[in-house]
């Protein structure tokens, strides 16, 4: 087990450094100081992701289960989801600049992870369920997508004030549409997260819904993104107000993830 822990620590650290390099090069990219660094920014992010994945594999091997069950493991996976969704979007649309807003976030979440206890502890009875894997696995995808959407929305709001070549992405309409597509994926996944959580709670605690702070905050997040969807149905509400809701939605995601654990008593607090 010590061996795995060592591999995990080393790969984690290198991934962290690579993400830093990637974030800094991305910042150069958007401030137009150096336009040619995009390949470096993307490749370091990709290399970081590979090592990050190795850290998660080592963790999985050491703990004999997927790294989904305490605050450290979830932060580790959350950051992974953020970088992965960024790189997937890059592969499809080639908008590297988004990394300038997403990679720093991944670093923050990794930093948060490194502050948590890394001890592998046995699972308490309520967590011993296949639903855990499914529930948390979809949460990672969902949160990663929302992080990405938040990044693009920030770009949208910056670009809305600029014109032509000064814009980060050429066409704000495109940023708006991309945000929409990314949020739609995140929201579908979040719906799966909430529903799987409810089904699991029905099995473990007899009630699918108990207004526990963590589940309540996931509902709040869900409602915010539902509002976002409907804002976009009207032409004049699209764009700015929708972008703000995308950002507020992600703040709610972060609060659900971190704030609830710190500030509110919860049956989910075993996840600390």
């Amino acid at each position, binding site marked *: 087990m010590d061996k795995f822990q060592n591999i995990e620590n080393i790969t984690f650290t290198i991934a962290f450094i690579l993400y830093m390099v990637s974030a800094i090069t991305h910042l150069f990219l958007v401030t137009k100081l150096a336009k040619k660094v995009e390949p470096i920014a993307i490749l370091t992010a990709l290399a970081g992701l590979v090592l990050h994945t190795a850290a998660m594999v080592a963790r999985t091997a050491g703990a004999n289960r997927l790294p989904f069950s305490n605050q450290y493991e979830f932060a580790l996976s959350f950051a992974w989801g953020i970088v992965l969704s960024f790189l997937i979007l890059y592969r499809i649309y080639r908008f590297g600049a988004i990394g300038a807003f997403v990679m720093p976030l991944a670093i923050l979440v990794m930093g948060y992870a490194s502050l948590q206890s890394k001890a592998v*502890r046995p699972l308490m*009875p309520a967590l011993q369920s296949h639903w855990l894997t499914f529930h948390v696995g979809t949460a990672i995808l969902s949160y990663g997508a929302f992080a990405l959407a938040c990044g693009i929305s920030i770009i949208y709001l910056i670009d809305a004030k600029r014109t032509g070549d000064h814009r980060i992405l050429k066409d704000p309409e495109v940023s708006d549409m991309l945000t929409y597509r990314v949020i739609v994926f995140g929201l579908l996944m979040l*719906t799966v997260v909430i529903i799987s959580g409810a*089904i699991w709670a*029905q099995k473990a605690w007899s009630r699918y*819904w108990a207004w526990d702070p963590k589940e309540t905050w996931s509902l*709040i997040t869900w409602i915010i993104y539902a509002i976002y969807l409907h804002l976009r149905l009207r032409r004049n509400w699209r764009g700015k107000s929708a972008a703000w809701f995308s950002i507020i939605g992600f703040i709610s995601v972060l609060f659900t993830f971190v704030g609830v654990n710190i500030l509110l008593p919860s049956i989910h607090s075993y996840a600390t």
Partner: protein
Amino acid sequence: MKRTSMKVLHAIASLKVAIVLLSLIAIYIVIGTLLPQHSAPEWYLERYPALGSLIISLSLDSAYGSPIFIVLIALFAINLTTCTVLSLKGQWRQMDSNYYPSFKEDEFTIDIEDQDTVHTFLKRKRFRVERGGDALRAGKFRWGVLGATITHIGLLVLFVGGTIGNMTASEDVVNLLPGNEKRFEEEGFLIRLEDFDMTFDDKGAVKQYISTVTVIDDDGTETTRELWVNNPLHHKGIGMYQASFGWTGNLRVTDTASGEIQAEGLLRSGRTYFHQSSHLTIYLYGYYPEMAIGHDQQPVSLSNREIDPHYAVVLYEFGNPVGSYIIAPGEAIPYKDLEITFTHAVAYTGLLVRSDPSYPVVLAGFLIILLGMFVSFYCYPRFIHFSSGTLRTASRRNGWVFHHSVRSALERTQTRKNKED
């Protein structure tokens, strides 16, 4: 007259109202999570001198069951129902295979010469193609407009399920020692606890609580099953869930001189036994399977493994405390002409017994919502128009994304073709 009523209906169904209601619901829920719930009114008045009375008048102390919250949800359900019904007509029209949206003149166009390439592409992507002279029109996933409606219906089903649940669900906690039975009169069966076990991991933390239960129906059929956390037992509409556990000690009161046992039985931790003949009250303060002394000099248990078990016992005579003791199993407390011992401990299981006939409805609501969202987001209607070297794409909420995907796919088709040529 008809006009005004339609106007009112459209106002009720408006998106603005929907967004305002959703925001209010979200804010109400947020306050419910930030404010401690279900305390006494005096507590709020004392803790929040300025806002206390407001909190109580808005029922924010029990936010999720308060009349205001229920009214908000009801208004929302009305808004949602009306809007869903009103939009059905338009969606019906758009599902018709002759329906095409207007294709914008300049936006979302792709220049492509070869009609055959376009036709092959559309066929491969399973579009329904319509030829007219040298022009092509094609559409796909027209039924996808129903996605929003399906989602909305799922939500309404969920509301109905939740409401039924709130009115009909019942819940009870049943504590059972091995051998104990609990009868369910209406359903016509009883359960008997055969055994209750805890398993531990190598660090001493509880790995699982396991109750072995026999269900005995009134017609005599018996089945025995184990149940544990995440593995409940369902029988005749009743769910039984492993929820808690506790300890009892086997109390024995013996006459010191004759050795005669005057009383014996299991006493639950935290409960008292009154021994009438000597006006003695025996209070089992606690049972500590792995005892240690905490910093406040109180006994604590490091785990639930019976490694170094002790009982804490307090005796009262005529209501006055006369002594407190920490004893090991079998160790006697001499008191006047009596000896008081706790021979061994037995754990009892706490089963949560709950019936909620609405759960299947709720589950159906969940699945309908998921289906509706998937249809909305991934099976949205897509349309293509092609004439004289220009291809136009149209998709109501996904214009640019659809255009981008068609462009990349066409480029790929063309490169492939060029390679073949």
